[in-house]
């Protein structure tokens, strides 16, 4: 039975790693916002997997907190961020 949890953990780790690539590469702030959202959701998946594996319920409050904080953070960034300038737009075309 343990192999199932190990497979789930490996898949979630791989998901977090390749999401971090998009988070670093951009190219626009909206792409980074989407990647950050995905990263938080992968973290929540990992916490849920840990709770299911270990039958430890103390982490479930962190799960709820992450859900709320990620929503507030994403909406704030989408609302108040500075739009990309033409300079970064030119750099994006070179990519």
């Amino acid at each position, binding site marked *: *039975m343990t192999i*199932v*949890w190990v*497979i*789930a953990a490996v*898949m*979630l780790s*791989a*998901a*977090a790693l*390749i*999401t971090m*690539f*998009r988070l670093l590469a951009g190219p*626009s702030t*909206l*792409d980074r*916002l*989407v*990647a950050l*959202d*995905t990263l938080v*959701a*992968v973290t*929540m*998946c990992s916490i*849920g*997997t840990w*709770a*299911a594996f270990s*039958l430890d*319920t103390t982490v*479930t*409050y962190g*799960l*709820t907190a992450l*859900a*709320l904080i*990620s*929503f507030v953070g*994403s*909406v704030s960034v*989408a*609302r108040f961020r500075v*739009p*990309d300038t033409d300079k970064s737009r030119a750099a994006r075309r070179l990519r």
Partner: protein
Amino acid sequence: MNASDIVAAVLVLGGSTLALTAAIGVVRFPDTLTRMHAATKPQVLGLLLVLAGAAIRLRGNVDVGMIILTGLFTLITAPVVANRVGQLAYREQNIRDDLLTRDEMHEFAESGETGGNGPN
């Protein structure tokens, strides 16, 4: 190990697979709208599957309420974030027009209506 444990394990495995496909989509897709599509739909379904598996494993515990609450928050907030990001990406033309089969926001703009929720 009984039947409910196996069901929970299958749910968690399916949720992890969906999370992985969402991450691959975020990295591989060409523009912001398609990345947002990959990040929103499989991601939320994967999270709900993992939470369902955890709730089955932790059944009978008081803290299952927090897990259900988390699933509800995710279902409510994910469309809001997707709407904001999609609208911003469209407004800044951060999309590839050749990948769109139909542009309904453009039809709105031509008919003089504002297709969005007002100014930003």
